[in-house]
């Protein structure tokens, strides 16, 4: 299975009926494709919409209805639109149940860095800092390693997005939790051994007696 699809499918299992969920760009956006139809999840787009729907069919796009990347989307029945003060009030105020973001690094303490590489990539943090500070649950969806280097590091070398630790990291190889403040290997991806995860993880992981395989 494509690594991104493994991640998206596993993250989708973390969502519950009634949740207000914000999906970041990249892999997190794919999560919406794997939410069962009977699960009534509200997706927020931080540019001012709750109830985002799929990409409109050819010829049905509206120029004033877009996602946070400026791409056309649709709105589901029951959708609501609002200004950016309301949108970030929802985010900072703890009204968003789950935020799913991409990451550059997550460290052993659960700290996330995902908004800049000094001297190289300085796009700005957009809504990421508010989302990590304010959402009830923070899930990072990212590849376990990039160019052979672990993205699960001992300590973030890149500027932090927030000092608030994330709750869960889902990669193409593993699910890592941070309950109790320690990075713990919760699950491995299908066909991946604990040893294989350890080999590409820079951070020290707590390994429980049994580590189940991810259900997708």
């Amino acid at each position, binding site marked *: 299975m494509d690594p991104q699809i493994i991640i998206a499918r596993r993250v989708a299992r973390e969502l519950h009926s009634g949740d207000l969920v914000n999906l970041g760009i990249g892999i997190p956006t794919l999560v919406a494709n794997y939410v069962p139809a009977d699960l009534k999840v509200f997706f927020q*787009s*931080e*540019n*001012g*919409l709750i109830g985002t729907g799929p990409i409109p069919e050819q010829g049905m796009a*509206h*120029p*004033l*209805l*877009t996602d*946070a*990347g*400026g791409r056309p989307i649709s*709105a589901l029945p029951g959708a609501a*639109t*609002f*200004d*950016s*003060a309301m*949108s*970030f009030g929802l*985010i*900072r105020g703890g009204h968003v149940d789950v935020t799913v973001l991409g990451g550059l690094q997550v460290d052993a303490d659960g700290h996330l860095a995902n908004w800049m590489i000094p001297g190289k*990539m*300085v*796009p*700005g*943090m*957009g*809504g*990421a*800092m*508010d989302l990590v*500070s*304010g959402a009830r649950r923070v899930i990072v969806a990212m590849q376990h390693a990039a160019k052979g280097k672990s993205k699960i590091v001992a300590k973030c070398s890149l*500027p*932090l*997005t*927030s*000092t608030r630790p994330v709750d869960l990291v889902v990669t193409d190889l593993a699910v890592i939790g941070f309950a109790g403040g320690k990075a713990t290997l919760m699950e491995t991806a299908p066909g991946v051994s604990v040893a294989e995860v350890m080999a590409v993880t820079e951070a020290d992981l707590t390994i429980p007696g049994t580590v189940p395989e991810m259900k997708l």
Partner: protein
Amino acid sequence: MNPVSVEEAVAMIPSGASIMVGGFMGVGTPERLLDEVVRQQKTGLTLISNDAATPGKGVGKLFDAALVSRLTATHIGLNPKAQQQMLANQITVDLIPQGTFVERIRAGGCGLGGVLTPTGVGTLVADGKRLIEVDGKSFLLETALRAQFALVHAFLADYLGNLTYALTARNFNPVMAMAAETVIVTAEHIVPVGVIAPDHVVTPAPLVDYLIANG
């Protein structure tokens, strides 16, 4: 509210002015005003806008024409020209979290000195800012943000200047319409007074200084 032509409106903006421009990745942006700013070559602008859009779209046009000298924004990653100008030190860029950006503008428009936010505590964003404890929690003091001009795009404007917005084109427009000395508005449709029901007015007419007439 005074109806004016787009040429007259932009002629009021001097080079070097501070302008807030509504829109999110070019959606809900007053394109006609920006086209005219480019045509009249207003240089050295201080731009306050969520993002830098993309080249050729929204505020991206101001970077195409190299009219911006200072930028306060939350994300410019989708405009390579703005990135290049920042890395070449042609523009001074202040990148701030989006929730902080909108609250600073809201504070500016609502007579507040600033806001206390947990966002950015312990990160690079906190550099040089006051940390204030309230009930045992740490917050950053983020000061109010205002501009000389707000360039706003509405969906409906009535003859008095009452405004409504559409879908995700609302974004920063209503907040910016409160935070500038002079508020200039373009609308998709100009409609008779009464078409917008009182309950549906988002920006009340007295906030609007100039409405761009249909050309």
